C-alpha cells in the first residue's frame, strides 16, 4: 500500500447527522409497517375462507383436559370459551352466502360449563342458542336439555334450569306432558315463583296456544338477564306477527284477486283494502304468496324463522 493510499484509508468517513438518521429510521418503520399491513390485508382478502376454517377448529374438546391445563385459571378459560361460543353463534347466524354450521356450539358451551360449573348464563342462554331451529341455530333441543341437566347436577335447587327445560319441551319439542313434569319439578324448588304450578296445569291441558306462549315469554321477559329479555322480546314480536298474519290472510281471503290476477299487496292497496304494504314489528314487509294468498314473514326479517304450530 502506498503512503497516499494509506492516508486515504485513515481519513475517517464523516458520520451521518443524527437528525437525518432519525428521519431515515422513522421512515423505515413507517414503510415496513405500511407494507406489513398491506400484505396482511391482501392475504386476508385472498384467503378469507382459510381463516374461517381455522376458526372452526376446536383443538381440545375435553373440558376435563382443559381444566387440568388451565391450572388455577379455569374460570378465566371458561370466559374465553364463553366469548368464543357467542362469537361462533353470532358469526354463523349473521353469515351470508355459505351454509350455517353450528357444530362447535355445544362443545364450546360444554367446555365453558365444565371449566366454570356455576356459569349460569352459559347454561340458560346456551340452551336458547342450541334449541333455536335452523337457520337461526343448530335446532338441537336435546343438547339444550343435556346442558341444563348438567347445570342441575351442579345446582339442584336452581328452579330456572328446570323451568328452561320445561320451556324447551313446550316451545321446541311440543311435548306438553314432559313440559308439565319439568314445570312441576321447577315449582318444587325453594324460592320458585308461584306461577309455575298454573303453568303445569296449562301444559297438561295441551295448550299449544299463543296465549300460553305469550304468558311464558312474558315471564322470561321479567328475567334479570338482559340477553334473555332480548330473546323474550323477539319471541313476543313473533307472536304478534303470527296474529297479524292471521288477520292479513283473512283479509286476502275476503278480497280474492280478479280472474287472471294473483294475490299481491299492490292489488289490495289499489282496491283500498290496505293503506300500504303491511310490515312486521321490525318494519320489514310481510310477503304474500301470489297463488293462494298465504302470508309469511320475509326471510330478511329479524323475526325469521318463525315458530311453527302455535295456534291462536
Amino acid at each position: 500500500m502506498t503512503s497516499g493510499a494509506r492516508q486515504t484509508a485513515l481519513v475517517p468517513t464523516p458520520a451521518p447527522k443524527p437528525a437525518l438518521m432519525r428521519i431515515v429510521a422513522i421512515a423505515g418503520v413507517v414503510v415496513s409497517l405500511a407494507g406489513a399491513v398491506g400484505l396482511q390485508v391482501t392475504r386476508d382478502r385472498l384467503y378469507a375462507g382459510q381463516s374461517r376454517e381455522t376458526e372452526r377448529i376446536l383443538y381440545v374438546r375435553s373440558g376435563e383436559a382443559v381444566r387440568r391445563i388451565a391450572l388455577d385459571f379455569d374460570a378465566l378459560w371458561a370466559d374465553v370459551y364463553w366469548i368464543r361460543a357467542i362469537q361462533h353463534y353470532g358469526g354463523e347466524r349473521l353469515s351470508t352466502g355459505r351454509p350455517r354450521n353450528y357444530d362447535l356450539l355445544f362443545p364450546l358451551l360444554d367446555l365453558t360449563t365444565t371449566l366454570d360449573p356455576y356459569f349460569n348464563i352459559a347454561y340458560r342462554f346456551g340452551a336458547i342458542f342450541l334449541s333455536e331451529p335452523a337457520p337461526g341455530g343448530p335446532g338441537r333441543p336435546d343438547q339444550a336439555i343435556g346442558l341444563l341437566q348438567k347445570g342441575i347436577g351442579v345446582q339442584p335447587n336452581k328452579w330456572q334450569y328446570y323451568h328452561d327445560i320445561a320451556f324447551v319441551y313446550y316451545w321446541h319439542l311440543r311435548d306438553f306432558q314432559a313440559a308439565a313434569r319439568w314445570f312441576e319439578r321447577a315449582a318444587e324448588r325453594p324460592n320458585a315463583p308461584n306461577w309455575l304450578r298454573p303453568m303445569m296445569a296449562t301444559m297438561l291441558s295441551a295448550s299449544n296456544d299463543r296465549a300460553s306462549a305469550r304468558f311464558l315469554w312474558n315471564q322470561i321477559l321479567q328475567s334479570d338477564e338482559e340477553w334473555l329479555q332480548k330473546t323474550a322480546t323477539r319471541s313476543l314480536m313473533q307472536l304478534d306477527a303470527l296474529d297479524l298474519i292471521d288477520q292479513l290472510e283473512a283479509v286476502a281471503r275476503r278480497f280474492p284477486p280478479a280472474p287472471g290476477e294473483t294475490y299481491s299487496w299492490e292489488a289490495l292497496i289499489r282496491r283500498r283494502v290496505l293503506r300500504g304494504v303491511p310490515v312486521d314489528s321490525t318494519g320489514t314487509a310481510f310477503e304474500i304468496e301470489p297463488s293462494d294468498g298465504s302470508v309469511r314473514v320475509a326471510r330478511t326479517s329479524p323475526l325469521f324463522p318463525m315458530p311453527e304450530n302455535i295456534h291462536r
Partner: protein
Amino acid sequence: MRAIRCIALSVFRESIRDRVPYNLVLFAILLIASSFFLGQLTAGQDVKIIKDLGLAATAVFGLFIAIFIGIGLVSKEVERRSIYALLAKPISRQQLVLGKYAGLVLTLAVNVAVMTVALYVVLAYMTWTTAAPLQTSWDAPGIDPRLLKAVFLIFVELMLITALALFFSTFSTPLLSAVLTLGLYIVGHFNADLRNFESVVESRTAAGLARGLYHLLPDLSAFDVKTQVVHGLDVPAGYLVLTAGYGALYIALLLVVAILIFSRRDFK
C-alpha cells in the same frame, strides 16, 4: 431484626429500580381496556369476567415476580461476588436469607395491594355505569368484599412460591431454579389428584407413594377460591385459616431448609 429489615428494604428498593412497578401499569391498562371491550362480547357477563381477569392477572403477575426475582435473590449475589461484601458485614447468613425473603414478600404485598385497589376501582365504575335492574342478574355485587378472600389466598400462595424460588436459589443456578420452581408450581396444582391415587391403582406401594408425595409436595390448588368468590359462593373462614396455616408452615419449612443449605455453603 434490624438487619433483616434493612436487607428487606434494600430488596424492595432494588425491585423498584428493576422497574417491577411497570407491571402495575400493564395491569391497569389490561383491566380498563377489558372493561370497555367486554361489554360488547360477553352477553352481560362483563363484571364476572373483569373479576376473573383481575384475580387471574394478580396471580400471574405475582407469579412472575415471585419466580423471576425470587430465583436471583441469593444466586445473583453469588454470581456477582457481592456476597463476600455482604457476609463481611455484621449480618448472619440466616438474616440474609430471611431479609431477602421479607423484601420480596413486601414487593409482592405492595403489588397485590395496588392491583386489588385497581380492580375495585374498575368494578366500582362498572357498577356505577350499569342500571340497577341489570345488576340483579349478577351472582355477586360488583364491589364485593368477598373478593378479598381470594386475594388473600393468592398472596399466601405467592409467598409460598417465593419461598420455593428462594430455596432453589440457595443451591442452584437461576435458570435451573426457575425451571424447578415453575415445575413445582405446575405439579402443585395437580397435587390433589395424588390424594385419591389408590382408587385408580391396585398396588398398595404405588398408592402409598402417591399419598406420601401428596403430603410432601405443595398443595397449591387449595389456594384457588377465585371461582367461588366470583359467583358469590361461601368460602368458610375455617377454610381460609387452615389453608393459610398450611401455607405458613410450608413456607417456614422451606425457609429453614434454605437457611440450612445456605449456612453450609462454602464461598471460597
